[in-house]
């Protein structure tokens, strides 16, 4: 569903306050479409996918790399192997089937990922900050993110908008964006030169929704959270590379229904939303 096509909320615009974190999760969930097969990473994507299933995408097929195909959790899973993901699932596969067969076989429409660092081409880093051999910060590692970014038909990335996270070049390319590592490791090449399809579709942050220019494949601002007081100047300041804001439109604020479902049904405990 395009945000532009969304029917106006007849109950009136939400007048209660909401957070940038909530807007981020809601904005990303709106990018998921009904019927799509969505491979959901751990963390906030679990929340956004849960919300989409309860709003506009009831027949979206939620897939988790470890254990679940068409997952319909009644309670928020806190990892992609959780028994909450298994309950009411149509099939309990292993990673060999989900990743080896479905993802590698080109049957995943959307990869939905979080990350620690993203760059102007949508490369994601969830491995380390600083030098690989002596990092200043070491993270948990790729998990399935690298595979998903390489092999899904498109990826949606969700992460907080901070200058240290939105960088010109990521310290380590865990998951490939539009212009990624050459085989010899010495330069950046367009992903299609390596025979990779797909690519990042959007980066949804705590300030707006970024997309990638069809010609340059660099990130630009598509929507910004004007209703929350976010300005384009703030986005420019929180981004570590030159970002085009000339196409930016204000984001439609959350509907009361979206907020209520998010707060009371999807993540009532605030496991990820940290209420």
């Amino acid at each position: 569903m395009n945000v532009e096509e969304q029917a106006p909320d007849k109950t009136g615009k939400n007048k209660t306050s909401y957070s940038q974190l909530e807007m981020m999760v809601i904005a990303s969930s709106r990018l998921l479409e009904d019927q799509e097969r969505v491979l959901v990473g751990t963390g906030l994507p679990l929340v956004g996918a849960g919300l989409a299933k309860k709003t506009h995408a009831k027949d979206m097929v939620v897939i988790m790399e470890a254990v679940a195909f068409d997952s319909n959790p009644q309670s928020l899973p806190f990892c992609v192997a959780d028994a909450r993901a298994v309950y009411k699932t149509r099939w309990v596969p292993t990673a060999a089937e989900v990743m080896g067969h479905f993802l590698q076989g080109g049957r995943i429409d959307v990869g939905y990922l979080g990350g620690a660092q993203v760059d102007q081409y949508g490369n994601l880093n969830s491995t380390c900050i600083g030098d690989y051999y002596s990092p200043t910060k070491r993270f948990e590692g790729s998990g399935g993110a690298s595979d998903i970014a390489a092999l899904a038909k498109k990826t949606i990335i969700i992460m907080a908008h901070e200058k240290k996270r939105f960088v010109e070049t990521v310290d380590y390319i865990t998951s490939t964006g539009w212009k990624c590592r050459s085989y010899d490791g010495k330069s950046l090449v367009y992903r299609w030169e390596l025979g990779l399809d797909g690519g990042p579709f959007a980066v949804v942050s705590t300030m707006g929704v970024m997309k990638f220019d069809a010609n340059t494949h660099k990130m630009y601002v598509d929507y910004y959270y004007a209703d929350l007081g976010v300005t384009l100047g703030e986005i420019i300041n929180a981004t570590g590379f030159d970002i085009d804001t000339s196409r930016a439109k204000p984001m439609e604020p959350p509907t009361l229904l979206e907020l209520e479902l998010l707060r009371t049904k999807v993540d009532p405990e605030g496991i990820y939303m940290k209420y």
Partner: protein
Amino acid sequence: MSGSNKKILLEQVADYVKDGDRVWTGGWTVVRKPMAMVYEVIKKRKKNLHLVGNPGGPETDLLIGAGCVIKTETNYIGHEVFGHPYNFRRKMEDEKHQGELFHDDWTVATGALRIMAGAMNIPFIPTRSLKGSDIINPSLDGFQALRGSDDKVPKKKVVLMEDPFWEGDTVALIPALKPDVCLIHAQEAGDDGTVSITGGAFLDYYAAVASGITIVSAERIVPREALEQTAESNVIPGEVVNAVLEVPNGAHPTALHRFYDNDPWWFKEYLEASKDEQRMEEWLEKWVYSMDHFSDYLEKIGFKRLQKLRANPVYGYNPDIKRRLDKLGGVT
């Protein structure tokens, strides 16, 4: 290996694990990890282990923190939403620990393919993944210093090759994973080694077949005839299992489908302790080294707390358990 009674005691598990072995720990991050067996391995002070479980959870961070590990070859080490793997981090980040841990980064798809190749007894397998990622950047290979000299480590991380049979796409050839020992915890196992798992077998079937030795602990060991009634959930045949042992709560503090959920109190205490080397050492003394038997550990956790973790048999998890550590109360 098709003999009938393969039962051993928890105290015997470490006899199967040699210093320097490549060890696969079953389960998935904070789910169905063979924790009781891992505590036993730590207690017996095993050294230079090479962990190949994909992905790793608290058992991996614990083994690293206890000084049992020199190599990790996996796609992830962490505790999911609970918090970060501080022992692993310290080894990678602190200058004084430089060179104590070699870490080789992989991915979920390639972890699955590599252990599958190991099970098939083929030396490598191609994948469409990895291209464009620093995971195959030749100058960023955590095992570079070991390749060609350590026979537990593949001579190369990856070989790029044009498909010679069909369209000529470039694929990455990746080495099979060949664990020496595989440790799995399950809901039930037969005394002949047949393993019954629900809630996701993850990659444990492949690991059991690929490994030199496979040991399975289970909540219940039952006569093989009992498992003939549940053939659909029997995911590993006894032929590839060398030993079984009955350890109720053997995956604690990780979750076991239909039996118990994650123990948030454990994660809270562990995460706090693991941030600091000295406190980690005290934690190990308190929860591992000073325990004569696993039953002492469970007694220390307490009946009340174990009751709180019990899964609802219909859901497979505990719908009442609180999972947010910063707002976690006591065990009431």
